[in-house]
């Protein structure tokens, strides 16, 4: 057995490879990107034995993984928490159809919103889908999860959601690797009907899924990721989910005085919770994200119920990730203080890199907008969102992947013009194309600026799935060829680029201006990453 220094995200990926993974699909998104990247860098992916190319978006990733598991293979799709919103449809319905080969849906939540627009908790999705969830506490567990979860998935024919949060995904520790298991043989399901979710079939499948909940609960009670740790002081019982368990051990020197239920697998192991309830008059719930477990415990008051403490009661801050400090405070441990906070440091917001093509495009937008009183720029998710900050200040919105084009359309439909959308090439491929079709179908008066740096820049330069095909895609969706313009965002072309954008704004109907220049970061590295070509290519 060998030991490797791995991020939590990488450990999960390595665990999957060693557990006989055949395909890893995903769309980049912090803090999940390193799961798929680790697979892409592996000898297994480089030789073509494991497929691992980036997909257009999270929905196509989950569907592709489902198709691969239909064929009897072990497959997984990885994404950040908001990516699961995009993939919610196949995720929830794959629970109804069930799986054939093992299927893991790996989701990295981002409490504290280090690189995200919300801190939604993926555990709630597992309640909607009625599927089990595994939440490793440390890098070793992250490695151990896939071998267990693929077997679980195949035993119960159910997708398993694996939840990471930012700190585990992005922290390194030595991980001891286990034996390598070969990939599954190709074997299409023998009971193919269950993959046809006609209402008559889906009703039966749904009944089965409801009945399976008992089995999932039994598995949770016996799971190696759930553990009851006795403690002499029963004035408090602690439920510590995922990485919260590490913080409890850290601040108690590895030996908590209170009984602790470590939770790493859901549904919540109710027998273990009962055991804690029977022993303790007060329960503290420590969990990353929403007060998910806490609110469920509050939901079943009984005569002898202990008092439940956590994020809802105020012992733990309602928002943001946990820390050793917040856990120590919630446990009532003596405060430890460092030096007082210095008032001197000022904020240092992220900014576009020197030489970034988006900066030139933002300057073009700035001058176009400065010449008129009206005008709104509906932007999207990517580096160009930094166009919101000084010295540019050119964007008005940023909501979620793809919203730029469709929000611009809605605002234009309402009469707010010019309505300009600002979207990156990869985001356009992810979920901008369908919105552009809506614009074409209504001849909506919108001007769409696609900033094409030919990569997924914000997450580190992954392959952009519509590379070299943006003009063809826009024309294919029905934008008039005269109104699909390509500009090169360079300072020397500024006046010319302003003129092109002005012309397209004055055109009544949808027009697209593609501002194409390679990301300065991928350019500096000499080549965009070859590793993520993946598969047999």
């Amino acid at each position, binding site marked *: 057995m060998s030991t490797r220094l791995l991020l939590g995200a990488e450990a999960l990926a390595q665990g999957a490879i060693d557990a006989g993974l055949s395909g890893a699909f995903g769309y980049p998104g912090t803090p999940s990107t390193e799961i798929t990247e680790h697979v892409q860098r592996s000898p297994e992916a480089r030789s073509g034995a494991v497929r691992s190319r980036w997909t257009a978006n999270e929905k196509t990733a989950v569907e592709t993984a489902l198709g691969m598991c239909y064929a009897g293979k072990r497959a997984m799709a990885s994404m950040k928490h908001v990516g699961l919103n995009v993939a919610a449809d196949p995720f929830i319905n794959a629970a109804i159809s069930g799986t054939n080969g093992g299927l893991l849906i790996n989701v990295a939540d981002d409490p504290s919103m280090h690189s995200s627009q919300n801190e939604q908790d993926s555990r709630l999705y597992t309640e909607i889908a009625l599927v089990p969830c595994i939440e490793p506490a440390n890098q070793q567990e992250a490695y151990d999860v896939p071998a267990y979860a693929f077997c679980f998935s195949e035993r119960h024919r159910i997708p398993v959601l694996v939840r990471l949060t930012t700190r585990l995904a*992005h922290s390194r520790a*030595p991980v001891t690797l286990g034996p390598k298991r070969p990939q599954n043989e190709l074997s299409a399901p023998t009971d193919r009907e269950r993959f046809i979710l006609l209402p008559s079939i889906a009703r039966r499948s749904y009944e089965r899924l409801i009945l399976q909940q008992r089995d999932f609960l039994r598995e949770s009670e016996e799971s190696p990721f759930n553990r009851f740790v006795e403690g002499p002081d029963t004035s408090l019982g602690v439920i510590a989910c995922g990485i919260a368990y590490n913080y409890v051990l850290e601040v108690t020197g590895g030996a908590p005085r209170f009984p602790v239920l470590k939770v790493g697998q859901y549904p919540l192991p109710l027998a273990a919770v009962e055991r804690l309830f029977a022993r303790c008059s007060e329960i503290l719930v420590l969990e990353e994200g929403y007060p998910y477990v806490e609110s469920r415990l509050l939901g079943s008051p009984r005569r002898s119920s202990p008092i439940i403490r956590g994020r809802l009661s105020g012992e733990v801050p309602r928002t943001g990730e946990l820390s050793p400090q917040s856990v120590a405070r919630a446990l009532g441990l003596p405060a430890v203080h*460092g030096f007082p906070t210095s008032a001197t440091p000022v904020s240092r917001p992220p900014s576009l890199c020197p030489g970034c093509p988006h900066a030139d495009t933002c300057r073009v937008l700035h001058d176009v907008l400065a010449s008129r009183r009206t005008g709104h720029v509906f932007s999207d998710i990517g580096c160009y969102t930094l166009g919101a900050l000084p010295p540019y200040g050119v964007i008005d919105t940023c909501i979620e992947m793809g919203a730029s084009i469709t929000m611009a359309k809605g605002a234009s439909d309402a009469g707010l013009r010019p309505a300009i959308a600002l979207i990156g090439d990869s985001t356009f491929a992810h979920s901008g194309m369908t919105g552009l079709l809506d614009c074409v179908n209504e001849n909506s008066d919108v001007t769409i600026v696609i900033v094409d740096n030919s990569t997924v820049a914000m997450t580190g330069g992954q392959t952009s799935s519509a590379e070299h095909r943006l003009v063809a895609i826009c024309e294919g969706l029905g934008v008039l060829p005269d109104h699909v313009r390509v500009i090169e965002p360079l300072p020397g072309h500024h006046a010319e680029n302003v003129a092109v954008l002005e012309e397209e704004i004055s055109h009544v109907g949808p027009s697209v201006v593609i501002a194409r220049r390679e990301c300065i970061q991928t350019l500096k590295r000499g080549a965009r990453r070859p590793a993520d070509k993946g598969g047999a290519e």
Partner: protein
Amino acid sequence: MKRDIILAGVGGQGLLSIAAILGNAALGLGLHLRQCEVHGMAQRGGVVQSHIRYSDAPLYSDLVREGTADLILSLEPMESLRYLPFLRPDGALVTNSVPIKNMPDYPDLDRILGEIRRLPRHRIVDAAIVAEQAGSLQCANLVVLGAATPFLGLAEDSLEAGIRSVFAGKDPRIVETNLRGFRLGVEAVRRAA
């Protein structure tokens, strides 16, 4: 032996290389290790920080607890002050003195350095000057690492092994420049001390 360290700097300064070197050195000694880093949006010229912990006893948390850091190692002076609540009362602060002013309201540098000098244990090194002596401004991060060696609890040869392993596969001249930067950093504080 246990060290809880906060690494501070600005995106692009080579902070994560420092984390990797410390991690490699600690692993080479068979120590337990946790290293936590910031990815994504925060890297774009913004604040970057990493927590690194190594110990001969098991570690649990990926994050350093406030009030318990043995060392703040910073590649930029203002950034070093951002994490003072993490530093234990007898902890040390080692920082580069060269500011990165990529915002309009960067505070007065003398005020920043004055605040650092009032801390009981600190080292301030002009990593740019030393790095130039070593042959490249690129190794300024290694200069600061060298300056921090008295507080790292790791022998210089373990750190040098860490440097070689992190830069393995690069041009041997790059490895040598980095080693030179590291050694000059060690000497710079030895002279000053």
